[in-house]
């Protein structure tokens, strides 16, 4: 696809792959990399070939964290004026499902990037964590928000206060990840999982994602209204007709994404 400096991309079998590609610095996230991830995701979001986006890291780990060199000399005003987290905000607007395949470390900004994914598959030896507190700062790209929404206040505060690493088994226990798999098979298993979703009717997947994300942030009443609108809307799709016809005729549906 496009020429990126910090990531590698390829689309295959309905899956749009994005690999963080700064293995020499353990894929430390710099602003350029986040911009490229966003650009690649927005491309995939518009591409007819891609149903599911898969994010992973090349080399020894997903990513060890944000590029500290980039921030060490910053002051409040420069950070504010840079407004660097708008790219992160836009990651949340991607409509297609994003699966993160995590191995090794996902710390700090890298954990926040993982939490931007809709689903996470982790190698059994993966470790997550927010060590920001040890540097005299705190997460700034959604860490305190997304982790709290996922795992609740109690554990979120513990992990954020201490900077303690969360191992894959514990992350699974608290619903931060969907599965832990053998480290040797991470990508294979993540692709197997992604293919199942890529084979589903894309409009259903799209509106389900939208409704679930809406539910996280709104009252039950508002969420229900939103869900109902999306539910009604799917009845204008060819896939709804095909899906129900196939069910009645006891055959496999052939979805077109329309």
């Amino acid at each position, binding site marked *: 696809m496009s020429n990126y400096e910090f990531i590698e991309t390829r689309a295959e079998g309905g899956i749009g792959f994005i690999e963080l590609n700064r293995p020499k610095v353990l894929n430390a996230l710099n602003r350029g990399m986040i911009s490229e991830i966003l650009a690649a995701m927005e491309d995939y979001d518009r591409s007819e070939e891609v149903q599911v986006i898969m994010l992973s890291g090349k080399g020894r780990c997903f990513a060890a964290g944000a590029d500290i060199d980039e921030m060490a000399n910053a002051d409040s005003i420069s950070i504010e004026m840079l407004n660097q987290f708008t790219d992160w905000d836009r990651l949340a607007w991607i409509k297609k499902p994003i699966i993160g395949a995590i191995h090794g470390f996902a710390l700090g900004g890298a954990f926040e990037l993982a939490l931007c994914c809709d689903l996470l598959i982790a190698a059994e030896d993966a470790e997550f964590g927010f060590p920001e507190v040890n540097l005299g700062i705190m997460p700034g790209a959604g860490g305190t928000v997304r982790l709290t929404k996922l795992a609740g206040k109690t554990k979120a505060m513990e992990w954020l206060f201490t900077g303690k690493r969360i191992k894959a088994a514990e992350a699974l226990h608290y619903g931060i990840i969907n599965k832990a*798999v*053998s480290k*040797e*098979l991470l990508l*294979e*298993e993540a692709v197997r999982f992604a293919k199942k979703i890529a084979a589903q009717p894309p409009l259903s997947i799209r509106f389900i994602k939208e409704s679930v994300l809406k539910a996280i942030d709104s009252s039950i009443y508002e969420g229900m209204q939103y869900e109902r609108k999306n539910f009604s809307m799917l009845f204008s799709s060819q896939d709804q007709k095909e899906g129900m016809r196939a069910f009645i005729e006891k055959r496999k549906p052939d979805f077109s994404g329309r």
Partner: protein
Amino acid sequence: MFETVTYEVRGNTAWLTLNRPEKLNAFNAQLNKDVQKAVKEASKDPNIRVIVLTGAGRAFCSGQDLEGVDEQTDLGDVLRTLYNPMVLEIEKCEKPTIAAVNGVAAGAGMSLALACDFRIASEKASFLQAFIHVGLIPDAGNLYFLPRLVGHAKALELAVLGEKIPAEEALRLGLVTRLASADHFLEETAAFAERLASMPTKAIGLIKRNLKASWHENLEEFLERDAQGQRIAGQTEDHREGVEAFLSKRKPVFRGE
């Protein structure tokens, strides 16, 4: 390389010898750290396919060195900072580990032997759950590994009564893999280590991994683990070699790849 552990590579085996013979290889902080670092080193070295832990001199390991421990010592912290990281390093290791128990393995020395995959004991060796005699409990994973080896009731009996367990009895209890003669202890241990070193190393690692998981997973989760484990093993060079050797009726040569 290490102050209190000698580290020798013989063929594909790393020999880690606890080397404080004048103290019967009792653990001080340095020995805890050296064992941990040496096991890590051997785990990382792609040439190493088996790790042997043994003791210099008469004893395997007599447990915690009581010098430097007094009423002020926070034993919980000693475990958290010294023993637990050592035990976890051994537990994490995917290569087969052998405790070559040349003499007495008492207290935390017994725990160290229990943390290994195999225990080869000299006829002269013995095990001792010494903790109860000073009003303490077996630590460093001892009470975790012991019931998995000998069953709950026997583990309780050994831990509470704290009687000396001679090598013969240890064999009968399933506490040790096999006995070796005192005169040819190192040769017999080396032969066993070499045998393991010529086996499919990745498959051994996966067997270790899955057996451990079997203690805390339900059958459905475990069967998925089986599928993943076999998928990994099925992609190894050693599997290909094994099948090819079987078909051409020759002995396989496994390279641990």
